[in-house]
């Protein structure tokens, strides 16, 4: 009985285990897993919940593996955005609905943010990606790692004055990179 069933499944083109998609997910995990898990952990404040979020994110990545593997946009930005969406959706699902329907001025509806030109993670990551390595590194140190110019100078091995001017020019470069996308330039 089992044999017959198997034969039928085999001849009717049963979906093979999607080795391709799995390989993609494996590579994505190796490359981005730690960033993703750290981010999910901060958002959820809970290690187990964070792992759930990462898993769900990767499953979605697998479903969108074609779009993800075309190399045209930041995979990491996509993953971080999806993880954040999942956390938000779960938080929203947990909340009591009636009290949340009323619009709160502190949480304006998305259309407004959208048209207001708030850019998303992928766009900014793409923008940072277009910068020179020196510009990107200085912004990572002084902004994302919150270092002072003196601290960044030590980490980067350049004079503090260089960190200051580089920060200025890096921001300008980022502004023009983002300007193409979100119309920042006035």
């Amino acid at each position: 009985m089992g044999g017959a069933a198997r034969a039928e499944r085999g001849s009717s083109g049963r979906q093979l285990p999607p080795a391709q998609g799995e390989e993609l997910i494996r590579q994505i995990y190796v490359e981005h897993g730690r960033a993703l898990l750290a981010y999910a952990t901060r958002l959820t404040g809970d290690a187990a919940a964070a792992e759930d979020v990462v898993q769900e994110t990767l499953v979605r990545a697998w479903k969108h593996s074609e779009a993800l593997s075309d190399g045209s946009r930041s995979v990491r930005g996509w993953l971080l955005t999806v993880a954040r969406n999942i956390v938000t959706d779960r938080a929203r699902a947990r909340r009591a609905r009636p009290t949340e329907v009323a619009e709160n001025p502190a949480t304006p509806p998305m259309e407004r943010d959208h048209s207001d030109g708030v850019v998303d993670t992928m766009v900014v990551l793409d923008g940072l990606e277009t910068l020179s390595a020196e510009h990107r590194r200085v912004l990572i140190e002084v902004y994302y790692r919150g270092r002072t110019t003196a601290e960044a100078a030590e980490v980067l091995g350049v004079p503090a004055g260089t960190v200051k001017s580089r920060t200025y020019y890096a921001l300008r470069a980022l502004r023009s990179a983002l300007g193409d996308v979100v119309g920042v330039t006035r």
Partner: protein
Amino acid sequence: MSEMQCRELVGAYAVGALEPPEAARLADHLLTCNRCRHELDEAEDTAAFMAAVPPEAFIDEPADPNDPLLLRTLHAIRLEAAAPPQVSRPAQASPAQPAAGPQLRAVRGEGGAPGGAGPDNGFPGWSGQRARSHRRRPRAGSASQQRRHLAFAGAAAAAVLVLAGGVLLGTSLAGDDDSGTTRTAPIAQQTVEPTGPPSNAVGPASAGLRGSDPATGAELEVAVSASDNFLTLDLEGTNLPAGQDVEIYAAPSVGNEVLVATLKVNAAGVLDDSKTVKMALADLVSISVRAAGETLVTAKRP
């Protein structure tokens, strides 16, 4: 302090990285210099956009491919793949498509990440926890200030940004060429080019092994996918001794067989599991299922 000197400080000032004495001197200058104030406005606007990217985006150490989290995830993916197709969506077909090696574009952090920022480092400077600018802004209600406020408001704003992000994401994934700018060709086009997969070294590789044993009636089908230095075996066996523990062995072309796992056959005599083994795909010759030292079935390459 000359205007040019001040100009170059504006960036560091905007992200709150200046040491207090220097920040104070620049603040004095800003009182009297419109052009530098304008520069600062622009720098702060740009810095506000950076808040859309979490600091964790710059963690660059690779994760361990043997993490239980990844193995669980792959299992979940297999379950989804095995489930009957629901709503037909284009992405559903992609895993089975013979694509070239995934062409991920890494987001570079810093080159050598000395010491590295581990996931638990906490990123004290993350804008969610600390105001980024030295300047208190007295003007209220301007559009740019509101945008800045949204971007800086930490967790609450993150939720808001998600919504916008979701919209952008949805549209950008829906089409291949929606961005309007010329980018890398979609993978479907790249695969038809005769140049072959670009990254054979790390590209995916897979094989299917199957076999049956006339004596025991058992059948075994193994889908093998290879990564850097290990194989994932998707095992499907039937007509195996129900409820018994069986051992899975992988035989390499050279050297001794490797015990992959001991698994329990279910009550229907079916084995359906996935295991990894450290072996190169080219070396793998066969997979055997054994119980009490007796081989029940062996799957070989076709």
